[in-house]
């Protein structure tokens, strides 16, 4: 019985094990992601977002669709349980809140620029050289997990750490934004398609 407990305990440890990558492993991951990113013109995917707040009984779930067109047009569209979309296009953030439209110029806003960078990265993953973040590489459950910690204090007020999980092909599977309080937002992607023609109408606001 005691043995069983030990084995179980060990298994739990093993499945959560997160080991730091060697320099060569990290370079290999960077190369894979970069190569995939370079040949990616468009991406569509479904996503489920889990908002974790420590004091809640369960995470708040929302579902939606994502569309990306190179180099930097991104649309996050929440479908359930509310209709809400944000579109990043030409340094402007367009919001459609269930029919109520508004927009915001991001050009002059440092925080928004970094946010946009993270968002694009969370889809393509290719931001390892960004000087604004401290980057570290881990192996986890056969996948790769990269942590981006913002250096900028103002930005760190919002996000303490940003984690991207890549599958073996170098595709982004999951993104986790951790707040200074350790509450987090986790976004899990599915049904990913790449390089399918995407009409501009998708990005019209």
């Amino acid at each position, binding site marked *: 019985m005691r043995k069983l407990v030990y084995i179980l305990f060990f298994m739990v440890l093993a499945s959560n094990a997160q080991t730091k990558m060697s320099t060569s492993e990290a370079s290999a991951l960077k190369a894979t992601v970069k190569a995939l990113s370079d040949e990616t013109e468009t991406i569509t995917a479904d996503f489920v977002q889990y908002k974790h707040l420590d*004091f809640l*009984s369960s995470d708040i*779930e929302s579902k939606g669709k994502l569309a990306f067109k190179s180099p930097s047009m991104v649309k996050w569209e*929440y479908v359930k349980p*509310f209709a809400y979309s944000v579109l990043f296009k030409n340094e402007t953030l367009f919001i459609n*809140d269930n029919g109520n439209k508004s927009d915001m110029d991001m050009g002059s806003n440092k925080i928004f620029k970094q946010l946009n960078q993270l968002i694009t990265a969370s889809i393509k993953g290719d931001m390892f050289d960004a000087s604004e973040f401290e980057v570290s590489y881990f192996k986890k459950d056969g996948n790769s997990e990269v942590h981006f910690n913002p250096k900028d204090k103002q930005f760190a*007020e919002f996000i303490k750490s940003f984690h991207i999980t890549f599958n073996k092909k170098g595709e982004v599977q999951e993104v986790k*934004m951790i707040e200074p*309080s350790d509450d987090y*937002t986790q976004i899990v992607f599915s049904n990913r398609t790449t390089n399918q023609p995407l009409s501009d109408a998708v990005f019209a606001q």
Partner: protein
Amino acid sequence: MRYLLSSLLLVLFVSCVSYPKKNGFIASARQPIQNPYFSDASKDYVYKANIEAFGNSLSGIFIVKKLGEDHHRIAFTTEMGNKIFDFTFEEEDFKVNHILKKMDKKILINVLKNDFRVLVKEKPSVENGFRKDSGSIYETQIGNKKYYHFLSEEKLNKVVRVGNGKGKVEFTFSEINDNIAQHIQILHKNIKLKISLKSISYEKL
């Protein structure tokens, strides 16, 4: 001079006539009342929120959790999960767990504190009772402020904070279903502030 004095007295007298009496209610017995809308500690209360403040509009997710007797947590995040503010109400205590630097202003926090305390106060102390037809009004005290709780068919549907005989802030609870107010509005009459909350039932997706 005398004329001025008597008109001053008259003004004083008129403004002393209580708010319910002005609205045709007659005095009745006072009895304990209950605001049941955030009273179930097993529930996570989640609302889609729209805050219109001084010409700006802000939308997001409004979350209320009862953590114990007279103990609630209230948080507001963007749709994408970034926390905007996070408050704790415990008996007479109030704590700011987090607020965006841009919003960290004493006046604003005070307004939000007073408003949200009314939302989560389950058993306000009742000072007086009034009746008209099938409705009742109870004069209550929350914090150091005076309120009127309106009940129709024993259900709380409105709370008004009164100053100088006039409603200054109006809270309305509508589309009530199984002790959940699907729609809540907080409307300030003396400052440009309106908070609209719409319940999100996020049954497991």
